[in-house]
C-alpha cells in the first residue's frame, strides 16, 4: 500500500525540497554548505542531482546579506528557500527578515511579493550549549508580514514545507533537530498541506494540551500515559504559529475547560502566553481551572547533561500537569507515572535516539 509508506521527518523535508524544485523551476536553494556532503543533516541531499548546480546557491558565511539577497531574488520572481543549520544564525539577518522580507509586500501596496522560505533548525542535546539550542519561534511569530510554521510530524513537515514554498509570503519553517529522527507515514510525490492552523492530533474531552514541534511528540507520549489512567487529553499541534488561528483551541477548551500549553522555546513570552491570553479572552466562562504553561526556563541552555534535567519539558512533567488540571488523584496516576519514570531512566537526557553517537 503506497499510501502507508513510512519515513523520517528529515527525509520528508528532503522530499518536499526535491518535489518543490520539480514543481516550480523558480525555486532556488540557498545556504551555507547547501550542497556539501553533510547536506544540512541530510535534508538537502540529492538537490544538485535533481535540479542542477545553478539552483543551489552556495553562500558565504554572511547571513544578513544572504537573506537580503534572497529577498531581492524573490522580488525578481524567484522562490528562494534558505536553510540555516541553526535558528541562531538567522538572528544576524533579523533586520532583513523583519523589515525587508516582512514589509516589502505591505510597503508596495501589494505590488511586491516575497515568496521566501527560511528553514531554521533548533539544536538540542549532545552538549550543544547555549548558542546552538535556542528555539526562537515566538520571536519570529511576533512579526507582521511573516508566517511561521513549526511541523512536529513527518507528514506535516513535508506538507507544510511544500505549502510554505508555494506561499507568496515569507515563511519561517522551524524544524527541531530531534524531530528529524521521527518516523511516520508520509505521502509520496508532490504533497502539500494547507497552512490552516492548529490540528487536533488526539481527540479528548478532559483537558486540552497545545504544543508545537518536538514538544508535540513529547506531549503525545504523555497523552498516551494519560489515556492509560483514563484521562482523555485532547492534543493539539499548533503547526502554524503565525498567523495564529486559535479557533480549534478555543473550541477544544470550550469542551474540556482546561488548558495546558507546552512550548519548544522559552515559557516567558512564548506561544503559550499568546494562546492562554487569547483563549481566556474567547472562552473565559468555559475555563474550569487556571491554564498551565510549560516551556524552557528563564536561562540559557547549558551544555552539560548534568544540568539538562529540569530544563526541557518532558513527558513526566506534561503528564503530571495535565493530570493535575484534570483533577486526577495521586493514586489514579501512580502506575502510569512509574512507567514514564522507568522509561526516562532508560534514555540518556542528551540524545534523541539510542542510535545517536555525536558529534551532533
Amino acid at each position, binding site marked *: 500500500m503506497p499510501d502507508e509508506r513510512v519515513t523520517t521527518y528529515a527525509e520528508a523535508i528532503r522530499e518536499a525540497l526535491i518535489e518543490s524544485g520539480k514543481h516550480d523551476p523558480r525555486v*532556488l536553494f540557498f545556504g551555507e554548505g547547501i550542497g556539501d556532503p553533510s547536506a544540512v543533516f541530510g535534508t538537502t541531499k540529492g538537490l544538485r542531482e535533481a535540479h542542477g548546480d*545553478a539552483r543551489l*546557491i552556495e*553562500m*558565504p558565511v*554572511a547571513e*544578513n*546579506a*544572504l*537573506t*537580503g*539577497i*534572497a*529577498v*531581492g*531574488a*524573490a*522580488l*525578481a*520572481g*524567484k522562490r528562494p528557500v534558505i536553510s540555516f543549520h541553526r535558528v541562531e544564525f538567522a538572528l544576524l539577518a533579523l*533586520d*532583513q527578515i523583519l*523589515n*525587508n522580507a516582512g514589509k*516589502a*509586500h*505591505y*510597503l*508596495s*501596496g*501589494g*505590488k*511586491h*511579493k*516575497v515568496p521566501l522560505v527560511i528553514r531554521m533548525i533548533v539544536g538540542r542535546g549532545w552538549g550543544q550549549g547555549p548558542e546552538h539550542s535556542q528555539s526562537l519561534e515566538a520571536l519570529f511569530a511576533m512579526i*507582521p*508580514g511573516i*508566517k511561521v510554521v513549526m511541523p512536529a510530524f513527518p507528514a506535516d513537515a513535508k506538507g507544510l514545507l511544500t505549502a510554505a514554498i508555494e506561499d*507568496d*509570503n515569507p515563511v519561517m519553517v522551524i524544524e527541531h533537530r530531534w524531530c528529524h529522527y521521527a518516523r511516520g507515514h508520509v505521502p509520496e510525490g508532490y504533497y502539500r498541506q494547507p497552512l490552516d492552523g492548529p490540528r487536533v492530533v488526539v481527540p479528548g474531552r478532559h483537558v486540552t494540551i497545545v504544543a508545537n514541534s518536538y514538544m508535540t511528540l513529547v506531549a503525545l507520549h504523555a497523552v498516551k500515559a494519560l489515556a492509560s489512567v483514563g484521562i482523555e487529553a485532547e492534543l493539539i499541534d499548533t503547526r502554524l504559529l503565525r*498567523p495564529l488561528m486559535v479557533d480549534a483551541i478555543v473550541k477544544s477548551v470550550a469542551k474540556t475547560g482546561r488548558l495546558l500549553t507546552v512550548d519548544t522555546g522559552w515559557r516567558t513570552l512564548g506561544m503559550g502566553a499568546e494562546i492562554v491570553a487569547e483563549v481566556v479572552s474567547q472562552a473565559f466562562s468555559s475555563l474550569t481551572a487556571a491554564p498551565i504553561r510549560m516551556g524552557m526556563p528563564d536561562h540559557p541552555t547549558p551544555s552539560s547533561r548534568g544540568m539538562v534535567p529540569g530544563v526541557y519539558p518532558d513527558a513526566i512533567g506534561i503528564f503530571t500537569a495535565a493530570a493535575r488540571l484534570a483533577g486526577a488523584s495521586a493514586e489514579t496516576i501512580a502506575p502510569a507515572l512509574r512507567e514514564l519514570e522507568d522509561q526516562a531512566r532508560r534514555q540518556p537526557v542528551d540524545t534523541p535516539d539510542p542510535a545517536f553517537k555525536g558529534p551532533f
Partner: protein
Amino acid sequence: MPSNAERDFDLNLFYDILRIRLVEGEIAKRYADQEMRCPVHLSIGQEAAAVGVCAALTRQDRMFSTHRCHAHYLAKGGNLKAMLAEIHGKASGCVGGRGGSMHLQDIPAGLMASVPIVGGSIPMAVGTALADSLDGVDTVSVACFGDAATEEGVFHESMNFAQLRKLPVLFVCENNLYSVYTPLAQRQPARPLTDYAKAHAMTAIAADGNDVFAVHAAAAAAVRRARAGAGPTLLVLDTYRWLEHCGPSFDNHIGYRSEEEYLGWRAQDPLERLRHHLTGQGALDAAAEARMTEAIMAEVDQAFDYARDEPLPAPAQAREHVYAR
C-alpha cells in the same frame, strides 16, 4: 562639435538635474505648510549623481535606494505626482501613503524599493542581479547608498557575493562626507572609499559626483562591464548635501560643518557646472533654460496641487496587504 543626439542627451541631463532641483526646492519651500508630514531627506546638491547614473541605465534596470531617495526616484523615471502624493500621505501616493518620503518606489520605472535602514537595500540589489543573471537577461541592478552605509557589514557581505558570482551590480556610493552630522573622518580611517573594492578584488571607479558627465562615463563603463558578465563595480561619487540631513533648511550654523566648506561645494554646484558647459557650447541659453524652468514648474505646481487635493487613505487601508494571497 557635439552631434544633435549628443546635444539632446546633454540637454536631457540638464533638464533632469534642473527638475530634481526644482522639485526638492519646492518641497523645502512648502514644508512649513505642514502638509508633508513625514521626514524628508532632500537631495539638493547631489542631483548629478542620480542623473548621471540613471542616464547609463535602461528603464528595465533595477535600482534600490535609501532614506535619501527623491533624486533616484525621479532620475530613474518615477512618477512625480505619485511621489508628491506619497510625501503628502495620500492614497494615490506611490506606495499608497504607507511609507512616506523614505520609502519611494516605482516598480515599472525600475525603482524597486527605498529602505531607510542604512545599508538595508544593498543585498536586495545583489539579489535581483542574481535572479536576472540566472534568467540570462542582461538587466543591471544598482544599489545606491551613502558613505555611512559603507560602514555597515552588509555592504561587505554583499560585495563579496556579487564579486564571487560576477553579478551585474553597481554599488553606487554617494559620498557627501557626512552621516547625519558626523564627518567621515570621525567614522573611517583616511583613505579613498574606492579601497573597499580592493578587499574583494572588485573594480572601483571614483568620479566627481558633481560632474554629471564624469558620473555618466563611470556608470556607463560599469554598466558595460556588468552586461558583459565582467561583474560588479563600486562607484564612489564625491558630492555634497546643501541642506540639513533631514528637513528643509540650511544648517551650517549649528556647528558640525563650516560655511567655508559649504561655499566651496556650492561653487561646485552640479547644475551650474552643467549650465556653464552647455552655454559655453551654445547648446543652452537663458531663454531656453527659462522655458525649461517654466515647463517644469508647471508640472511641479500641478503635481503639488494634485498631491494636496487627493484624499488621504482610509484608516481601514492600514490593514490591507499584510499578506499576499
